[in-house]
């Protein structure tokens, strides 16, 4: 089986403000989805969420605070899964809750060094 990186992206600005109950419900959705992949023995690493601020270092030495001015969507988190093909990995990504917030999942095969 091959390994795939799932990159979760969404626009922070358009993310709905959630109440604590909604946040808990969202956490449950994420857990159900990622555990559903783990239950198939296809989770390599659940990965992590990312803090929504950061720096971008450019070739001219200029440091800017995050890529948000240039691209609308930023990376919220990542997970590592395994699958036989890109198609199967894409199928596994289909239940990802970020899709219901207008976000997207990028699926990339790991090209191991």
């Amino acid at each position, binding site marked *: 089986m091959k390994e795939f990186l799932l990159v979760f992206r969404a626009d922070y600005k358009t993310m709905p403000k959630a109440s604590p109950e909604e946040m808990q419900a969202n956490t*449950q959705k994420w*857990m*159900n989805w*990622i*555990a*559903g992949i*783990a*239950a*198939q*023995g296809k*989770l390599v690493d*659940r990965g992590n969420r990312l803090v929504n601020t950061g720096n971008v270092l450019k070739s001219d030495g200029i440091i800017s605070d995050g890529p948000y001015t240039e691209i609308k969507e930023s990376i919220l988190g990542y997970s590592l899964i395994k699958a036989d093909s890109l198609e199967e990995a894409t199928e596994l990504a289909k239940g990802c809750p970020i899709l219901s917030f207008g976000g997207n999942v990028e699926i990339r095969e790991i090209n191991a060094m």
Partner: protein
Amino acid sequence: MIALVYLQGLFLFMQQDNLIPHLFRTEYSKIVAVLYHSFNLKHLETAEDIASETFLKATEVWSIKGPPENPAGWLYTVAKNKTKDYFKHNAVVERQVKEALQLNDVETAHDFDFSDQNIADSQLAMIFAVCNPGNSAEAQICLALQILCGFSVEEIANAFLTKTETIKKRLQRARANLRNGDFQIKILSEAEIKTRLDSVLKTLYLLFNEGYFSRTNNQLIRKDLCSEAVRLTYILTENILTNIPQAHALLALMCFQSSRLDARISDKGEAILMDNQDRNLWNKELIEKGNYYLVNACQGNEISKYHLEAMLAYWHTTPTDKNKWQHILQLYNQLIIIEYSPVTALNRTFAFAKVYGHEKGIKEAEKLNLDEHAYYHSLLGYMHADTNIDKAIHHYEKAVALTGSRIEKQTLSKEIKRLVEKRAAG
């Protein structure tokens, strides 16, 4: 070793008098551990021989005079004397021991004690020596049962539903591995404990499961295995070096599971599912203990698989709560992310179906690719039973064909019969 095998045969013969077999089980391993620990004998067999000779003398003397008032104390005294004799009269005193004895005051060295503390320390050291990752998990469990729990080869074979010869060979190989790996128990260093504690916990966990989910139908053997695992884990929680949250979590898990041992099997030997168990048969004292150790386990931030399994067992012993299955599902979610196993995947799916309904549960199950597992089919049978009797029967029949457990076959066949009758009634 010859003496040991002979003795165990003798005790089998003496089953009508319950005292010696019971003492053998509890005291043999203590004597071996203390002798071995105190003298750092090069060969485990020497300690075992002295312990066996002690019991041989007990059977001789007690059968004439009757058992003494304090049988355990009597055994310890005889074991001490036999050890002294071993050093005095044995011409081939091991150099290592000689040196050790020259370094220490001879009398103090001989005056090793059988205090509760020293027994616990010695057994703890023995647990770490036996749970050597150089041996397979199965071999570690066999060794633990023999050396730490005083089980006979036959009893181990019964528990594993394996031939005695197979167990004998397994034990011989495992012992040879320990010897080659310079097997000795020393005063445990913190570093050694850290590197081996995981494997110790795992072996004790498997030892317990061997009893709890045993392939044998012998309820007595199951209980023995479970209570031995509890006893050894308890030793871990009592020592300052091994008293970690994970050990408490494991002990909590064992207490919760043990509380249901009597309720799980019917008089006819059929497995009873949790929902149908007579809660009056659950052991409340053990549930209390489980709660106690679970609270202890939660001091700290770490959540291990033992924590999750103990929490799951806790929810299972708790009367129905509105969100019970949602809690259980979330715990299974965390557990499957930490460690995949087909059983966890299927248990999680069961909880998923409880929360989101059987239809979604079926979809979740069909992704699992566990067609070869009996439980996969019994779960699908269960989820189909209300809506699609034909499919339910089909899956239950597959489960019957796949399972190795007689009890499970009976339970499933009963359910098939019920569905067939329901279908006929239209």
